[in-house]
Protein backbone atom coordinates (compact mmCIF):
# COMPACT_ATOMS: atom_id res chain seq x y z
CA UNK A 1 0.00 0.00 0.00
CA UNK A 2 1.40 3.32 -1.00
CA UNK A 3 -0.37 5.84 1.14
CA UNK A 4 1.40 9.13 1.54
CA UNK A 5 2.55 9.74 5.11
CA UNK A 6 2.36 13.19 6.71
CA UNK A 7 3.42 14.52 10.09
CA UNK A 8 2.08 17.64 11.77
CA UNK A 9 4.93 19.66 13.27
CA UNK A 10 4.24 21.41 16.57
CA UNK A 11 6.45 24.42 17.16
CA UNK A 12 6.89 27.38 19.43
CA UNK A 13 9.09 30.48 19.32
CA UNK A 14 10.65 29.46 16.00
CA UNK A 15 11.68 25.96 17.16
CA UNK A 16 10.13 22.61 16.34
CA UNK A 17 8.83 20.50 19.22
CA UNK A 18 10.75 17.30 20.11
CA UNK A 19 7.84 15.34 18.68
CA UNK A 20 8.84 16.44 15.15
CA UNK A 21 11.83 14.07 15.00
CA UNK A 22 9.98 11.28 16.84
CA UNK A 23 7.24 11.33 14.19
CA UNK A 24 9.89 10.66 11.50
CA UNK A 25 10.87 7.48 13.36
CA UNK A 26 7.20 6.51 13.69
CA UNK A 27 6.71 7.08 9.93
CA UNK A 28 9.72 4.84 9.13
CA UNK A 29 8.36 2.13 11.39
CA UNK A 30 5.00 2.41 9.66
CA UNK A 31 6.50 2.14 6.17
CA UNK A 32 10.26 1.69 5.88
CA UNK A 33 10.32 3.40 2.48
CA UNK A 34 7.98 6.21 3.49
CA UNK A 35 9.06 9.67 2.43
CA UNK A 36 7.10 11.54 5.08
CA UNK A 37 5.94 15.09 4.43
CA UNK A 38 6.15 17.55 7.32
CA UNK A 39 3.25 19.98 7.64
CA UNK A 40 4.14 23.30 9.26
CA UNK A 41 1.44 25.90 9.88
CA UNK A 42 1.87 29.31 11.46
CA UNK A 43 2.79 32.88 10.75
CA UNK A 44 5.56 35.37 11.22
CA UNK A 45 9.32 35.32 11.12
CA UNK A 46 9.86 32.10 13.10
CA UNK A 47 7.98 29.95 10.62
CA UNK A 48 10.80 29.68 8.08
CA UNK A 49 13.22 28.61 10.81
CA UNK A 50 10.83 25.82 11.78
CA UNK A 51 10.50 24.75 8.13
CA UNK A 52 14.29 24.69 7.72
CA UNK A 53 14.64 22.64 10.90
CA UNK A 54 11.97 20.18 9.71
CA UNK A 55 13.72 19.88 6.34
CA UNK A 56 16.67 18.39 8.22
CA UNK A 57 14.55 15.33 9.04
CA UNK A 58 11.84 15.26 6.38
CA UNK A 59 12.39 14.94 2.61
CA UNK A 60 9.58 17.40 2.04
CA UNK A 61 8.04 20.20 4.09
CA UNK A 62 4.72 21.84 3.32
CA UNK A 63 4.56 25.36 4.69
CA UNK A 64 1.22 27.06 5.35
CA UNK A 65 1.65 30.67 6.43
CA UNK A 66 -1.40 32.73 7.40
CA UNK A 67 -2.02 35.34 10.09
CA UNK A 68 -4.96 33.33 11.42
CA UNK A 69 -2.59 30.40 12.08
CA UNK A 70 -0.35 32.34 14.47
CA UNK A 71 -1.70 30.29 17.36
CA UNK A 72 -2.34 26.56 16.73
CA UNK A 73 -6.14 26.49 17.03
CA UNK A 74 -7.22 22.95 16.13
CA UNK A 75 -10.61 24.24 15.01
CA UNK A 76 -8.87 26.21 12.23
CA UNK A 77 -6.21 23.64 11.39
CA UNK A 78 -8.72 20.78 11.02
CA UNK A 79 -10.56 22.29 8.02
CA UNK A 80 -7.20 23.34 6.53
CA UNK A 81 -5.87 19.78 6.67
CA UNK A 82 -9.17 18.45 5.36
CA UNK A 83 -8.64 20.70 2.35
CA UNK A 84 -4.97 20.01 1.61
CA UNK A 85 -4.41 16.33 2.50
CA UNK A 86 -4.76 13.89 -0.41
CA UNK A 87 -7.35 11.14 -0.18
CA UNK A 88 -6.11 8.14 1.76
CA UNK A 89 -3.34 10.08 3.50
CA UNK A 90 -1.86 8.81 6.75
CA UNK A 91 -1.29 11.68 9.20
CA UNK A 92 0.90 11.35 12.28
CA UNK A 93 0.26 13.67 15.22
CA UNK A 94 1.86 13.97 18.65
CA UNK A 95 -0.54 12.78 21.37
CA UNK A 96 -0.37 16.13 23.14
CA UNK A 97 -3.15 18.48 24.21
CA UNK A 98 -3.10 19.79 20.63
CA UNK A 99 -3.17 16.32 19.06
CA UNK A 100 -6.10 15.33 21.27
CA UNK A 101 -7.93 18.50 20.21
CA UNK A 102 -7.33 17.99 16.49
CA UNK A 103 -7.14 14.25 15.80
CA UNK A 104 -10.49 12.61 16.61
CA UNK A 105 -12.57 15.16 14.69
CA UNK A 106 -10.12 15.22 11.80
CA UNK A 107 -10.36 11.45 11.39
CA UNK A 108 -14.14 11.77 11.08
CA UNK A 109 -13.89 14.65 8.59
CA UNK A 110 -11.36 12.70 6.47
CA UNK A 111 -13.38 9.50 6.93
CA UNK A 112 -10.09 7.96 8.04
CA UNK A 113 -9.32 5.47 10.78
CA UNK A 114 -8.20 6.95 14.11
CA UNK A 115 -5.50 5.28 16.20
CA UNK A 116 -4.90 7.31 19.37
CA UNK A 117 -1.97 7.40 21.80
CA UNK A 118 0.04 4.75 19.97
CA UNK A 119 3.14 3.52 21.83
CA UNK A 120 4.37 1.01 19.25
CA UNK A 121 3.87 0.09 15.60
CA UNK A 122 4.00 -3.63 14.80
CA UNK A 123 3.65 -3.31 11.06
CA UNK A 124 1.43 -3.11 8.06
CA UNK A 125 -0.08 -6.15 6.33
CA UNK A 126 -2.05 -5.14 3.28
CA UNK A 127 -4.22 -2.33 4.55
CA UNK A 128 -4.24 -3.54 8.14
CA UNK A 129 -1.99 -1.65 10.52
CA UNK A 130 -1.18 -3.28 13.84
CA UNK A 131 -0.29 -0.93 16.68
CA UNK A 132 0.33 -1.16 20.42
CA UNK A 133 -1.60 0.91 22.97
CA UNK A 134 -2.03 0.92 26.71
CA UNK A 135 -5.31 0.84 28.61
CA UNK A 136 -6.40 1.04 32.24
CA UNK A 137 -3.88 3.70 33.11
CA UNK A 138 -0.98 1.63 31.77
CA UNK A 139 -1.94 -1.58 33.60
CA UNK A 140 -2.66 -3.56 30.40
CA UNK A 141 -1.41 -3.34 26.83
CA UNK A 142 -3.35 -4.15 23.71
CA UNK A 143 -2.76 -4.70 20.01
CA UNK A 144 -5.16 -2.81 17.78
CA UNK A 145 -5.74 -3.59 14.12
CA UNK A 146 -6.81 -0.65 12.04
CA UNK A 147 -8.05 -0.78 8.47
CA UNK A 148 -6.21 2.15 6.94
CA UNK A 149 -7.29 1.61 3.33
CA UNK A 150 -9.17 4.92 3.54
CA UNK A 151 -6.35 6.72 5.31
CA UNK A 152 -5.54 7.15 8.99
CA UNK A 153 -4.91 9.70 11.68
CA UNK A 154 -2.44 8.30 14.22
CA UNK A 155 -1.49 10.10 17.42
CA UNK A 156 1.81 9.03 18.88
CA UNK A 157 2.86 9.07 22.53
CA UNK A 158 5.90 11.16 23.34
CA UNK A 159 9.13 9.24 23.98
CA UNK A 160 8.03 5.99 22.30
CA UNK A 161 9.80 6.45 18.95
CA UNK A 162 13.40 7.50 19.61
CA UNK A 163 14.69 9.91 16.96
CA UNK A 164 17.40 8.82 14.53
CA UNK A 165 20.82 10.33 15.03
CA UNK A 166 21.42 11.63 11.54
CA UNK A 167 19.40 14.65 10.49
CA UNK A 168 20.43 15.26 6.93
CA UNK A 169 17.26 14.67 4.97
CA UNK A 170 18.04 17.78 2.95
CA UNK A 171 14.32 18.27 2.50
CA UNK A 172 12.66 20.70 0.20
CA UNK A 173 10.32 23.36 1.60
CA UNK A 174 7.21 23.89 -0.51
CA UNK A 175 5.27 27.06 0.24
CA UNK A 176 1.61 26.09 0.03
CA UNK A 177 0.29 29.24 1.70
CA UNK A 178 -1.77 30.12 -1.36
CA UNK A 179 -3.90 27.02 -0.68
CA UNK A 180 -4.92 28.21 2.77
CA UNK A 181 -7.74 30.43 1.50
CA UNK A 182 -10.27 31.78 3.96
CA UNK A 183 -10.15 30.35 7.48
CA UNK A 184 -13.00 30.67 9.94
CA UNK A 185 -13.86 28.77 13.09
CA UNK A 186 -16.59 28.90 15.69
CA UNK A 187 -13.89 28.77 18.36
CA UNK A 188 -11.69 31.84 18.69
CA UNK A 189 -8.40 31.76 20.61
CA UNK A 190 -8.20 34.50 23.26
CA UNK A 191 -5.01 34.04 25.30
CA UNK A 192 -2.87 31.64 27.33
CA UNK A 193 -2.82 32.14 31.09
CA UNK A 194 0.45 30.97 32.65
CA UNK A 195 0.23 28.46 35.50
CA UNK A 196 0.30 29.92 38.99
CA UNK A 197 3.62 30.19 40.79
CA UNK A 198 3.75 28.47 44.17
CA UNK A 199 5.74 29.02 47.35
CA UNK A 200 8.23 26.29 46.41
CA UNK A 201 9.92 25.62 43.09
CA UNK A 202 10.01 21.83 42.75
CA UNK A 203 11.87 22.14 39.45
CA UNK A 204 15.00 23.17 41.37
CA UNK A 205 14.92 20.45 44.03
CA UNK A 206 17.34 17.48 44.13
CA UNK A 207 15.15 15.22 46.25
CA UNK A 208 11.38 14.98 45.89
CA UNK A 209 8.93 13.01 48.00
CA UNK A 210 5.96 12.72 45.70
CA UNK A 211 2.45 12.01 46.94
CA UNK A 212 -0.19 10.10 44.99
CA UNK A 213 -3.71 8.83 45.31
CA UNK A 214 -2.51 5.99 47.55
CA UNK A 215 -2.57 8.38 50.50
CA UNK A 216 -6.35 8.17 50.41
CA UNK A 217 -7.18 11.30 52.34
CA UNK A 218 -5.82 14.81 52.81
CA UNK A 219 -5.47 14.11 56.54
CA UNK A 220 -2.70 11.63 55.71
CA UNK A 221 -0.45 14.22 54.04
CA UNK A 222 1.67 14.69 57.20
CA UNK A 223 2.91 11.10 56.67
CA UNK A 224 4.67 12.33 53.52
CA UNK A 225 5.66 15.69 55.00
CA UNK A 226 7.38 13.98 57.93
CA UNK A 227 9.35 11.74 55.57
CA UNK A 228 10.34 14.74 53.45
CA UNK A 229 11.49 16.56 56.57
CA UNK A 230 13.57 13.57 57.70
CA UNK A 231 15.22 13.41 54.27
CA UNK A 232 15.63 17.14 53.79
CA UNK A 233 13.39 16.85 50.73
CA UNK A 234 10.41 18.74 49.33
CA UNK A 235 6.91 17.34 48.80
CA UNK A 236 5.58 17.14 45.25
CA UNK A 237 2.56 15.24 43.96
CA UNK A 238 0.65 13.65 41.10
CA UNK A 239 -2.40 15.08 39.38
CA UNK A 240 -5.23 13.56 41.48
CA UNK A 241 -3.80 15.30 44.54
CA UNK A 242 -4.18 18.69 42.86
CA UNK A 243 -7.62 17.82 41.48
CA UNK A 244 -8.69 17.01 45.04
CA UNK A 245 -7.20 20.36 46.18
CA UNK A 246 -4.90 18.74 48.78
CA UNK A 247 -1.86 20.55 47.38
CA UNK A 248 -1.34 23.51 45.08
CA UNK A 249 -0.86 23.08 41.33
CA UNK A 250 2.75 24.31 41.57
CA UNK A 251 3.67 21.03 43.32
CA UNK A 252 2.32 18.79 40.53
CA UNK A 253 4.81 16.71 38.52
CA UNK A 254 3.68 15.80 35.01
CA UNK A 255 2.98 17.01 31.50
CA UNK A 256 0.13 19.15 32.83
CA UNK A 257 2.24 20.24 35.80
CA UNK A 258 5.95 20.86 36.31
CA UNK A 259 8.86 19.16 34.60
CA UNK A 260 11.34 18.25 37.33
CA UNK A 261 14.86 16.83 37.23
CA UNK A 262 15.74 15.65 40.72
CA UNK A 263 18.54 13.21 41.61
CA UNK A 264 16.22 11.12 43.78
CA UNK A 265 12.47 10.72 43.35
CA UNK A 266 10.20 8.88 45.77
CA UNK A 267 6.89 7.98 44.11
CA UNK A 268 4.56 7.15 46.99
CA UNK A 269 1.14 5.76 46.11
CA UNK A 270 1.60 6.98 42.53
CA UNK A 271 0.56 4.60 39.74
CA UNK A 272 2.93 6.18 37.23
CA UNK A 273 0.76 7.23 34.29
CA UNK A 274 2.68 8.38 31.23
CA UNK A 275 1.45 11.92 31.84
CA UNK A 276 3.08 11.83 35.26
CA UNK A 277 6.33 10.26 34.05
CA UNK A 278 6.43 12.83 31.23
CA UNK A 279 7.25 15.44 33.85
CA UNK A 280 10.19 13.51 35.30
CA UNK A 281 13.46 14.14 33.44
CA UNK A 282 17.18 13.72 33.99
CA UNK A 283 17.12 9.99 34.81
CA UNK A 284 16.69 10.23 38.60
CA UNK A 285 16.97 7.32 41.03
CA UNK A 286 13.31 6.36 41.48
CA UNK A 287 11.91 4.57 44.50
CA UNK A 288 8.28 3.45 44.16
CA UNK A 289 5.98 2.39 46.97
CA UNK A 290 2.59 1.12 45.86
CA UNK A 291 0.22 -1.56 47.11
CA UNK A 292 -0.67 -2.53 43.52
CA UNK A 293 2.14 -4.73 42.22
CA UNK A 294 0.81 -4.13 38.65
CA UNK A 295 1.21 -0.36 38.88
CA UNK A 296 3.21 0.87 35.85
CA UNK A 297 5.48 2.87 38.17
CA UNK A 298 7.32 -0.41 38.92
CA UNK A 299 8.31 -0.64 35.23
CA UNK A 300 10.27 2.60 35.45
CA UNK A 301 11.41 2.70 39.08
CA UNK A 302 14.88 1.53 40.14
CA UNK A 303 13.68 0.14 43.44
CA UNK A 304 10.16 -0.85 44.44
CA UNK A 305 8.29 -1.73 47.60
CA UNK A 306 4.88 -3.39 47.29
CA UNK A 307 3.10 -1.99 50.34
CA UNK A 308 0.43 0.41 51.51
CA UNK A 309 2.11 3.80 51.77
CA UNK A 310 0.29 4.64 55.00
CA UNK A 311 1.75 1.56 56.67
CA UNK A 312 5.21 1.65 55.11
CA UNK A 313 6.18 5.33 54.98
CA UNK A 314 6.06 5.99 58.77
CA UNK A 315 8.43 3.03 59.27
CA UNK A 316 10.81 4.47 56.70
CA UNK A 317 10.71 7.89 58.35
CA UNK A 318 11.47 6.31 61.68
CA UNK A 319 14.39 4.34 60.23
CA UNK A 320 15.87 7.46 58.66
CA UNK A 321 15.59 9.40 61.91
CA UNK A 322 17.25 6.50 63.79
CA UNK A 323 20.12 6.46 61.30
CA UNK A 324 21.09 10.05 61.89
Amino acid at each position, binding site marked *: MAAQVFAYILHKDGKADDSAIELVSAAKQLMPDAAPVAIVTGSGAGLDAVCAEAAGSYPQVWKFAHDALAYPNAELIRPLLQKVLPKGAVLLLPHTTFGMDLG*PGLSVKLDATYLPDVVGIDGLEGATLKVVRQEFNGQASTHLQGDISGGAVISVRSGCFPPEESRSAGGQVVDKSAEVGELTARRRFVEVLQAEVGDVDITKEDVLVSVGRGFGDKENLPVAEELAQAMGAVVSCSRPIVDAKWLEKARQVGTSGKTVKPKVYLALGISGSFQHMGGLKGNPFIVAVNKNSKAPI*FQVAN*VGVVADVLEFVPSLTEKINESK
Partner: protein
Amino acid sequence: MEILVCVKRVPDSAENEIEVKADGSDIKREDLVYSVNEWDNYAVEEAIQIVDRVGGSVTVASIGNPDAEEVVRREMAMGAANGLLLTDPAFEGSDGRGIAAVLAAAVRKGKYDLVLTGAQADDGAAQVGGMVAALLDWPYASLVNKIEVQDGGMLRVGREIEGGNQELSDIQTPCVLSIQTGINEPRYVGIRGIRKVASVEIPVLKAADLGLNAADVGRAGARVKRADYFVPPAGAGAEILQGSTDEITAKLVDLLKAKGGIK
Protein backbone atom coordinates in the same frame (compact mmCIF):
# COMPACT_ATOMS: atom_id res chain seq x y z
CA MET B 1 -29.18 25.66 28.72
CA GLU B 2 -29.98 22.07 27.75
CA ILE B 3 -26.94 19.89 28.44
CA LEU B 4 -26.27 16.25 27.58
CA VAL B 5 -23.47 14.55 29.49
CA CYS B 6 -22.10 11.26 28.14
CA VAL B 7 -20.87 8.90 30.85
CA LYS B 8 -19.24 5.47 30.85
CA ARG B 9 -19.19 2.67 33.40
CA VAL B 10 -15.58 1.53 33.79
CA PRO B 11 -13.42 -0.61 36.07
CA ASP B 12 -12.08 1.77 38.68
CA SER B 13 -8.35 1.65 37.93
CA ALA B 14 -7.46 3.19 41.30
CA GLU B 15 -9.26 0.35 43.10
CA ASN B 16 -8.36 -2.61 40.88
CA GLU B 17 -5.32 -4.58 39.85
CA ILE B 18 -5.97 -5.20 36.18
CA GLU B 19 -4.95 -8.67 35.02
CA VAL B 20 -5.03 -10.06 31.51
CA LYS B 21 -6.76 -13.40 30.84
CA ALA B 22 -4.44 -16.23 29.84
CA ASP B 23 -5.78 -16.31 26.27
CA GLY B 24 -5.48 -12.53 25.90
CA SER B 25 -9.12 -12.13 24.87
CA ASP B 26 -9.94 -9.68 27.67
CA ILE B 27 -8.95 -8.57 31.13
CA LYS B 28 -10.22 -10.59 34.09
CA ARG B 29 -13.47 -8.82 34.90
CA GLU B 30 -15.07 -11.11 37.51
CA ASP B 31 -13.92 -9.32 40.64
CA LEU B 32 -13.51 -5.81 39.35
CA VAL B 33 -15.04 -2.82 41.09
CA TYR B 34 -16.89 -0.68 38.54
CA SER B 35 -17.78 2.96 38.84
CA VAL B 36 -18.44 6.00 36.69
CA ASN B 37 -15.41 7.13 34.68
CA GLU B 38 -13.73 9.75 36.84
CA TRP B 39 -13.60 12.44 34.09
CA ASP B 40 -17.32 11.96 33.40
CA ASN B 41 -18.14 12.62 37.04
CA TYR B 42 -16.51 16.06 36.75
CA ALA B 43 -18.50 16.65 33.54
CA VAL B 44 -21.80 15.91 35.28
CA GLU B 45 -20.90 18.21 38.17
CA GLU B 46 -20.00 20.98 35.74
CA ALA B 47 -23.29 20.58 33.84
CA ILE B 48 -25.28 20.79 37.07
CA GLN B 49 -23.38 23.93 38.16
CA ILE B 50 -24.03 25.60 34.77
CA VAL B 51 -27.76 24.84 35.00
CA ASP B 52 -27.81 26.15 38.58
CA ARG B 53 -26.43 29.45 37.26
CA VAL B 54 -28.32 29.95 34.00
CA GLY B 55 -31.25 27.52 34.07
CA GLY B 56 -32.06 24.56 31.84
CA SER B 57 -31.66 20.89 32.51
CA VAL B 58 -29.08 18.11 32.49
CA THR B 59 -29.49 14.73 30.82
CA VAL B 60 -27.04 11.91 31.57
CA ALA B 61 -26.62 9.33 28.80
CA SER B 62 -24.67 6.09 28.71
CA ILE B 63 -24.11 3.37 26.16
CA GLY B 64 -23.94 -0.11 27.50
CA ASN B 65 -25.65 -3.17 28.81
CA PRO B 66 -28.28 -2.77 31.55
CA ASP B 67 -25.46 -2.48 34.14
CA ALA B 68 -24.86 1.02 32.83
CA GLU B 69 -28.17 2.06 34.39
CA GLU B 70 -26.63 1.98 37.87
CA VAL B 71 -24.06 4.56 36.77
CA VAL B 72 -26.67 6.76 35.08
CA ARG B 73 -28.75 6.76 38.27
CA ARG B 74 -25.78 7.58 40.43
CA GLU B 75 -24.99 10.58 38.24
CA MET B 76 -28.66 11.65 38.12
CA ALA B 77 -28.63 11.65 41.90
CA MET B 78 -26.07 14.47 41.75
CA GLY B 79 -28.82 16.67 40.32
CA ALA B 80 -29.48 15.72 36.70
CA ALA B 81 -33.16 15.67 35.80
CA ASN B 82 -33.03 13.10 33.02
CA GLY B 83 -31.29 9.86 32.13
CA LEU B 84 -30.92 8.05 28.85
CA LEU B 85 -29.72 4.51 28.17
CA LEU B 86 -28.46 3.57 24.73
CA THR B 87 -28.59 -0.20 24.70
CA ASP B 88 -28.53 -2.60 21.78
CA PRO B 89 -26.56 -5.78 21.08
CA ALA B 90 -25.69 -4.11 17.77
CA PHE B 91 -23.52 -1.57 19.67
CA GLU B 92 -21.16 -4.24 21.04
CA GLY B 93 -17.65 -4.20 19.62
CA SER B 94 -17.97 -0.59 18.47
CA ASP B 95 -14.76 1.32 17.94
CA GLY B 96 -14.51 4.96 19.03
CA ARG B 97 -16.15 6.11 15.84
CA GLY B 98 -19.06 3.70 16.40
CA ILE B 99 -19.59 4.92 19.96
CA ALA B 100 -19.50 8.49 18.69
CA ALA B 101 -22.09 7.66 16.00
CA VAL B 102 -24.48 6.31 18.65
CA LEU B 103 -24.01 9.37 20.87
CA ALA B 104 -24.36 11.79 17.95
CA ALA B 105 -27.63 10.10 17.00
CA ALA B 106 -28.86 10.52 20.58
CA VAL B 107 -27.89 14.22 20.48
CA ARG B 108 -29.89 14.69 17.27
CA LYS B 109 -32.97 13.19 18.96
CA GLY B 110 -32.94 16.00 21.54
CA LYS B 111 -32.50 19.78 21.55
CA TYR B 112 -29.20 20.30 23.29
CA ASP B 113 -27.07 23.43 23.46
CA LEU B 114 -24.08 21.71 24.96
CA VAL B 115 -22.69 18.16 25.02
CA LEU B 116 -20.08 17.23 27.62
CA THR B 117 -17.90 14.13 27.78
CA GLY B 118 -15.01 13.20 30.03
CA ALA B 119 -11.62 13.98 28.45
CA GLN B 120 -10.84 10.25 28.41
CA ALA B 121 -11.95 6.94 29.92
CA ASP B 122 -10.49 3.55 30.76
CA ASP B 123 -8.95 3.01 27.31
CA GLY B 124 -7.19 6.38 27.43
CA ALA B 125 -8.09 7.16 23.82
CA ALA B 126 -9.55 10.64 24.40
CA GLN B 127 -11.42 10.34 21.12
CA VAL B 128 -15.19 10.21 21.49
CA GLY B 129 -15.97 13.86 22.24
CA GLY B 130 -14.07 15.17 19.22
CA MET B 131 -15.70 12.58 16.98
CA VAL B 132 -19.22 13.44 18.21
CA ALA B 133 -18.52 17.12 17.47
CA ALA B 134 -17.29 16.31 13.97
CA LEU B 135 -20.28 14.07 13.22
CA LEU B 136 -22.64 16.86 14.35
CA ASP B 137 -20.48 19.50 12.69
CA TRP B 138 -20.36 21.41 15.99
CA PRO B 139 -17.27 23.18 17.33
CA TYR B 140 -15.19 21.31 19.90
CA ALA B 141 -12.74 21.95 22.68
CA SER B 142 -10.89 19.22 24.58
CA LEU B 143 -9.44 19.09 28.10
CA VAL B 144 -11.68 21.90 29.31
CA ASN B 145 -11.03 23.11 32.85
CA LYS B 146 -13.21 26.24 32.90
CA ILE B 147 -16.61 27.17 31.42
CA GLU B 148 -18.21 30.61 31.64
CA VAL B 149 -21.55 31.24 29.96
CA GLN B 150 -21.51 34.52 28.05
CA ASP B 151 -24.04 36.46 25.96
CA GLY B 152 -25.10 35.50 22.47
CA GLY B 153 -24.75 31.75 22.91
CA MET B 154 -21.01 32.01 23.48
CA LEU B 155 -18.96 30.21 26.11
CA ARG B 156 -15.55 31.31 27.39
CA VAL B 157 -13.69 28.03 27.91
CA GLY B 158 -10.27 27.22 29.32
CA ARG B 159 -8.29 24.23 28.04
CA GLU B 160 -5.59 22.72 30.19
CA ILE B 161 -2.45 22.63 28.05
CA GLU B 162 1.14 21.57 28.71
CA GLY B 163 2.79 22.83 31.86
CA GLY B 164 -0.57 23.46 33.53
CA ASN B 165 -1.10 26.61 31.49
CA GLN B 166 -4.65 27.49 30.51
CA GLU B 167 -5.65 28.31 26.93
CA LEU B 168 -8.72 30.56 26.83
CA SER B 169 -11.08 30.56 23.85
CA ASP B 170 -14.57 31.72 22.98
CA ILE B 171 -16.69 28.98 21.50
CA GLN B 172 -20.11 29.14 19.88
CA THR B 173 -22.92 26.88 21.12
CA PRO B 174 -24.10 24.34 20.28
CA CYS B 175 -20.75 22.70 20.91
CA VAL B 176 -19.08 19.66 22.41
CA LEU B 177 -16.55 19.97 25.25
CA SER B 178 -14.44 17.24 26.82
CA ILE B 179 -13.92 17.88 30.51
CA GLN B 180 -10.62 17.58 32.38
CA THR B 181 -10.49 16.50 36.03
CA GLY B 182 -10.04 19.28 38.57
CA ILE B 183 -12.49 21.68 36.85
CA ASN B 184 -14.68 21.52 39.98
CA GLU B 185 -15.19 19.49 43.12
CA PRO B 186 -17.81 16.84 42.33
CA ARG B 187 -20.45 16.59 45.04
CA TYR B 188 -20.78 13.50 47.16
CA VAL B 189 -23.74 11.26 46.42
CA GLY B 190 -25.12 9.29 49.32
CA ILE B 191 -27.45 6.34 49.40
CA ARG B 192 -30.34 8.71 50.13
CA GLY B 193 -29.68 10.67 46.97
CA ILE B 194 -29.61 7.53 44.86
CA ARG B 195 -32.87 6.35 46.47
CA LYS B 196 -34.54 9.59 45.46
CA VAL B 197 -34.00 8.88 41.77
CA ALA B 198 -34.52 5.11 42.06
CA SER B 199 -38.00 5.28 40.58
CA VAL B 200 -37.35 7.85 37.85
CA GLU B 201 -37.95 6.19 34.53
CA ILE B 202 -34.92 6.10 32.25
CA PRO B 203 -35.80 5.77 28.56
CA VAL B 204 -33.93 3.07 26.65
CA LEU B 205 -33.11 3.73 23.01
CA LYS B 206 -32.00 1.03 20.57
CA ALA B 207 -30.29 1.32 17.20
CA ALA B 208 -33.60 1.51 15.36
CA ASP B 209 -34.90 4.26 17.71
CA LEU B 210 -31.79 6.26 16.88
CA GLY B 211 -32.10 5.70 13.14
CA LEU B 212 -28.82 3.77 13.07
CA ASN B 213 -28.01 0.89 10.75
CA ALA B 214 -26.64 -2.11 12.62
CA ALA B 215 -23.96 -2.39 9.92
CA ASP B 216 -22.58 1.08 10.74
CA VAL B 217 -21.99 0.51 14.44
CA GLY B 218 -20.73 -2.33 16.60
CA ARG B 219 -18.29 -4.92 15.40
CA ALA B 220 -19.64 -4.79 11.83
CA GLY B 221 -18.88 -1.10 11.40
CA ALA B 222 -15.59 -1.00 13.31
CA ARG B 223 -12.47 -0.17 11.35
CA VAL B 224 -10.42 -0.51 14.51
CA LYS B 225 -10.46 -3.90 16.22
CA ARG B 226 -8.72 -5.04 19.36
CA ALA B 227 -6.64 -8.12 18.53
CA ASP B 228 -5.73 -8.95 22.12
CA TYR B 229 -4.71 -7.76 25.54
CA PHE B 230 -1.21 -8.61 26.68
CA VAL B 231 1.31 -7.95 29.37
CA PRO B 232 4.36 -6.29 27.85
CA PRO B 233 7.61 -8.17 28.38
CA ALA B 234 9.01 -6.89 31.63
CA GLY B 235 11.78 -4.40 30.98
CA ALA B 236 14.55 -3.83 33.47
CA GLY B 237 11.83 -2.83 35.92
CA ALA B 238 12.27 -2.09 39.58
CA GLU B 239 14.19 -4.29 41.96
CA ILE B 240 11.39 -5.18 44.37
CA LEU B 241 12.71 -5.16 47.91
CA GLN B 242 11.70 -8.23 49.91
CA GLY B 243 11.78 -9.08 53.57
CA SER B 244 10.41 -7.65 56.79
CA THR B 245 9.54 -3.96 57.01
CA ASP B 246 12.64 -3.53 59.15
CA GLU B 247 14.89 -5.16 56.53
CA ILE B 248 13.31 -3.23 53.68
CA THR B 249 13.55 0.15 55.38
CA ALA B 250 17.17 -0.52 56.36
CA LYS B 251 18.05 -1.38 52.76
CA LEU B 252 16.23 1.70 51.49
CA VAL B 253 18.00 4.00 53.91
CA ASP B 254 21.36 2.67 52.66
CA LEU B 255 20.31 3.13 49.03
CA LEU B 256 18.95 6.62 49.60
CA LYS B 257 22.12 7.67 51.41
CA ALA B 258 24.24 6.31 48.57
CA LYS B 259 22.20 8.22 45.99
CA GLY B 260 22.19 11.49 47.91
CA GLY B 261 18.55 11.19 48.88
CA ILE B 262 19.09 11.91 52.54
CA LYS B 263 20.66 15.22 53.42
